[in-house]
C-alpha cells in the first residue's frame, strides 16, 4: 500500500486542530518556506509536477509564475473550496479533517506569489467544513501563523473565509471571482486571465483545496519526491471520491498512476452485491463515461485524456448493470440545464433543450431523430462559450449516447 499523504491524519482524533496538526510535523514546511526566496518556492512546486486537482489539471507552479514579475499591485490567492462537481467530495474531507494543511499551503503559496490576502471560497452547502476551516483560521491567527509579521519574518498574510450561496458555476474559477466580488457568479471573458486581472481587478491565483494542501508536503520533502510518486507528467498521490455501486465507496488516496480497475476492485472492494460493472464516470459528472471494458487506464490527467475522457475532479462514479444510461443522462442533463449560468447563448439555450429531449426519451416519447439532434447540438455548442461549463456538459451528452446508443434506441417507440 502506497504512503498516505493527504489522508495521513484523517483518522486521528482532533486532526482538525492545530495541536494535532503540529504533532505530525504541521507548519514545519512554513518555517522552511519563510526562509526560502519566493521564486525558489515556485520552482520546487514546478519540480513536483503538481497539477491542479480541482478539474483542469493545470501545472500549479506554472500557474503561479503567471503573476506579473515585479508588480506592485495587491495580489490575491483564492482557494476554490466550492466543490460542486457531482460525484466529488474529497475537499470536504480535507477541510473537515486536515484544514491546517490547506492553511499552511496557503501561507506558503502567498509567499511564493507575493500575496498578502487570501480568500477561501467555500460552497454554501458545506456548513461543517466552513465551521471547521473558520475555527482553524482563528487558531492560526492566535498562534501567530497568520496576520502581521508571521513568525517574526516581516511577512503579513491574512485569510478571509467566504461562503458561496450554492451555484455550481461558482466553482468555475472566474465565476467564483465574480461571486467573491459580490456580483452574480458569471464567468469572466478571457483575456484578461486571473493571474493578470482577477479578483477585484488584481493579479489573482485560484487553487483548489487539495492542490494547495499538497504544497506543505512538497516543501518539506522536495518536489522530486512528490514527482516520483506519480507519472512522468503528474506528480503525487491524490484523493479519488469513489461513489456508486462499489462495496466500499468513499475518499481513497492513491498515486495518480493507479488504474481505474485497481481503484474499483482493490481499493473499493469491487462491485456491490456481486453485480456486473456497466460504466464508470472517472472525473466528476463532466467527464465522458467509460464502459466496463475501458477501465484499464491510469487515473492521471494524461492517462484519462488518452482514453478520451478526463480526470476532472477525480469523482469516480461507478455504475452497475442496474443503471439505465438514458436515465443517467437525463439526470445529468437536468443538472447542467439547472446550473448553466445563462450568460453564453449556446450553453444557456441548449442545456435546457437537451434536457427536454433526454427527458422525453426516458418518458418513452422520443423521436428517432432526437439522438442525432442531441449529438449535433452538443457538438455544435462545444468550444463556443466563455467557460468550460458547456464543454463539461457535452462530455456526458455525447459519450453516454455514443457508447450506449442501443439502450437509448430501445426506449424510442417504433413508428407505425
Amino acid at each position, binding site marked *: 500500500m502506497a504512503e498516505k499523504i493527504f489522508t495521513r491524519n484523517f483518522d486521528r482524533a482532533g486532526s482538525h486542530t492545530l495541536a494535532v496538526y503540529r504533532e505530525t510535523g504541521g507548519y514545519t514546511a512554513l518555517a522552511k518556506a519563510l526562509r526560502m526566496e519566493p521564486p525558489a518556492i515556485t520552482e520546487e512546486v514546478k519540480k513536483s509536477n503538481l497539477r491542479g486537482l480541482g478539474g483542469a489539471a493545470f501545472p500549479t507552479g506554472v500557474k503561479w509564475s503567471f503573476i506579473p514579475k515585479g508588480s506592485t499591485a495587491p495580489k490575491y490567492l483564492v482557494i476554490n473550496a466550492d466543490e460542486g462537481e457531482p460525484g466529488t467530495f474529497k475537499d470536504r474531507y480535507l477541510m473537515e479533517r486536515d484544514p491546517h494543511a490547506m492553511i499552511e499551503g496557503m501561507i506558503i503559496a502567498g509567499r511564493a506569489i507575493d500575496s498578502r490576502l487570501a480568500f477561501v471560497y467555500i460552497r454554501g452547502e458545506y456548513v461543517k467544513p466552513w465551521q471547521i476551516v473558520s475555527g482553524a483560521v482563528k487558531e492560526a491567527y492566535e498562534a501567530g501563523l497568520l496576520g502581521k509579521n508571521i513568525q517574526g519574518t516581516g511577512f503579513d498574510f491574512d485569510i478571509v473565509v467566504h461562503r458561496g450561496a450554492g451555484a455550481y458555476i461558482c466553482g468555475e474559477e472566474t465565476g467564483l471571482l465574480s461571486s467573491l466580488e459580490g456580483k452574480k457568479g458569471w464567468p469572466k471573458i478571457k483575456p484578461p486571465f486571473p493571474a493578470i486581472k482577477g479578483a477585484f481587478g488584481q493579479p489573482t491565483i485560484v487553487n483548489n483545496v487539495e492542490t494547495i494542501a499538497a504544497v506543505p508536503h512538497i516543501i518539506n520533502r522536495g518536489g522530486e519526491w512528490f514527482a516520483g510518486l506519480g507519472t512522468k507528467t503528474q506528480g503525487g498521490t491524490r484523493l479519488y471520491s469513489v461513489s456508486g455501486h462499489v462495496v466500499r465507496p468513499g475518499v481513497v488516496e492513491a498515486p495518480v498512476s493507479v488504474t481505474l480497475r485497481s481503484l474499483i476492485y482493490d481499493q473499493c472492494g469491487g462491485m456491490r452485491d456481486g453485480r456486473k460493472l456497466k460504466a464508470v464516470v472517472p472525473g466528476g459528472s463532466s467527464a465522458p463515461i467509460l464502459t466496463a471494458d475501458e477501465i484499464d487506464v491510469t487515473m492521471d490527467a494524461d492517462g484519462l485524456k488518452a482514453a478520451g475522457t478526463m480526470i476532472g475532479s477525480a469523482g469516480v462514479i461507478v455504475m452497475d448493470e442496474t443503471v439505465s444510461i438514458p436515465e443517467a443522462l437525463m439526470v445529468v442533463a437536468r443538472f447542467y440545464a439547472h446550473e448553466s449560468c445563462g450568460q453564453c*447563448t449556446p450553453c444557456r439555450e441548449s442545456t435546457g433543450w437537451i434536457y427536454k429531449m433526454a427527458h422525453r426519451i426516458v418518458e418513452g416519447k422520443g423521436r428517432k431523430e432526437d439522438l442525432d439532434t442531441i449529438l449535433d447540438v452538443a457538438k455544435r455548442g462545444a468550444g463556443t462559450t466563455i467557460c468550460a461549463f458547456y464543454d463539461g456538459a457535452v462530455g456526458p451528452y455525447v459519450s453516454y449516447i455514443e457508447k450506449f446508443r442501443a439502450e437509448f434506441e430501445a426506449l424510442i417507440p417504433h413508428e407505425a
Partner: protein
Amino acid sequence: MPKLTIDGKEVEVAAGTNLIEAARQAGVEVPHYCYHPGLSIAGQCRLCMVDIEKNPRPQIGCNTQAADGMVVHTQTERVLETRKSIMEFHLVNHPLDCPVCDQAGECWLQIYYMRHGLYDPRMVDEKVHKPKAVPLGPHVILDAERCILCSRCVRFCDEVTKTGELGIFNRGDHSEIGLFPGKTLENNYSGNVIDICPVGALTDRDFRFQVRVWYLDTGRSICNGCARGCNVEVHTSRRRPHHNQGRRIARLKPRHNPDVNQWWMCDVGRYGFGWIDDDSRLLAPLRRTGGADAALGWDEAVTALAEAVKRYRPEEIGILASPQMSNEDLFVLQRLAAHLGVAAVDHRVPPRVPGEEDDLLLRADRNPNRRGAELIGLGTGDARGILDGARQRRIKLLWIFQHDLLDSGWPPADVTAALAGAEMVVFQGPSANATSAGAHLVLPSAAYVEREGTFTNFQGRVQRFRTVVEPLGEAQADWAILGRVGRALGGADPAFSAGRAEQVFAGLAGQVPAFSGMSYRGLRDAGQAVKA
C-alpha cells in the same frame, strides 16, 4: 497602429481596436448582438466568432484586439457553421411572434436568421415561458420571452446612466431581464435601451402598435429639445396615413455623432415631438380685429405686416426672437432689423420653470439655437426692456416669435399689460398659444422637421437638419417669411431673396465672423464648430 488582414483585405487600425470594428473598417460585417461600441465588452452572445490564423478554434471578435500581422477570416466553413448554430440557439426558446411584434422589420433576429441562419428548426418541445408585456417604466415595456439576454440594456443602465435599474435574474434558460426590487426604469435616458435592444424584448410604449416599421420613412434632423442638439433620425408614417393615429411623426431615434451625443438621446427630446402633429399648429396666416379672426393669403399677410411696420418709427418696434429658430431664420431677421434700423431685438425670454440639467446630454436651456442667436447678434436689445417698452406704450409694434410670453418667467400681469399696451402684436411661430391668441396678426411657421436649416449647439457646433415632412397647411420657414417681408419693405439684401436655406447660410457665412469659411454642404452629417 496594427496592420492586419481581414478576408484578404489589409487594414490598418488604431491600437486597441477589436476585430468587429477592424472588420467594419475593412468593409466586412461581423454579425453580433451583445457588442455595442458604447458599452463594455460582454462576450455573451457568441455570434461574432471569426477565425484567426494559428488559432485552433474561432474566437469572438468583440474581445479580440487587432494585432499586427493578424490574419482574420470571417467566411470560413466553420465560422459560417458556428454562426448558424448560434442563431439556432438564440431562437430555440424565442416565441417567433413576429406578426405581432413591433420589432419585426428592424429585428436583428430576423436579419441575421436570413443572413446567417436559414437552418431547419429542430425544436419540438415546449419553449420556456417568461413574463410578457411588463412595463419597466414610463417608456419601456419588456417581453422577456423575446429577449436574447445580450445584456446591452443592463450595461447601459450600469455604465452610461449609472442608475443600475436592470439586472439579469435566474439562471440558464430561465434567465430574464428585470428590475431590481423597488426600481423603475425612469431615468432620463430610458428610451435608449429600446434602441440598443437588438430584438423585440424592449419596445417603446409610445410607439407600440402604432405603425409597422416597414411603412416608416426616415429623415435626418437635430433634436430641438435643448441646447445639446443631439443628432436624430425622424421616423415618419406617410405611406399608411391611417396608421399612427394619423400623425406623421412616429418616433425619434438618436443618430450617432461622436462629438455631440454619441449613440444616445434623452427622453425629454425623444418624446418631445408631439406638438408637430398637434391640433394647436397654426395652418394659415390670420388677422384678428375686434375679436374676429380672418384667414389671409400670404401676400395679404405680408402686405399687412409691411404696412404696419411702415407705420412706426424704428424705436417703436420691438422684436422677441426665439432660440428655437434656425441660424438662417435668425440671420434674415437680423438683416431685416438692420434694414429697418430696429435695435430692440432680443431672444432672451426667461422660461417659467428653468429646465433640469444632467451631466450626460440634457441641458437646462431647452432651446436648440441659443448660441446661434448670440453669435448672429440678436441679443442687442434687452428682452425685458422690450416687454416694458410695450407696457409703457413706447413700443407700439411687438413682433413675437414662437414664445408664449404668458407661460414664461415674466409675471403674467406684466405680459398682459404689454400685449394690451402694444398697438400691434404680431405672432410668428408654428403653434398657437395664449400669446398668439391675443395677437393681431398671426403668421404660421413651418416646424423644424418641415424645412431645413442649421442650429448652433451650446458648444458652438453648427449642425444641419433636413426637411422630413412637408409643412402643415400654409406654414413656411421663418427665413422665407422674413425674406418676403424684407422685400415688401424694399430691402435689397440678398438674404431676402434667397430661395433655399443653403443660400441664406452662404450669406450668414459671409457676414457673421463666427461662421466664416463654412459652407452648408461642408457641414455634412457631423457638423462643424464655429470659430472661437
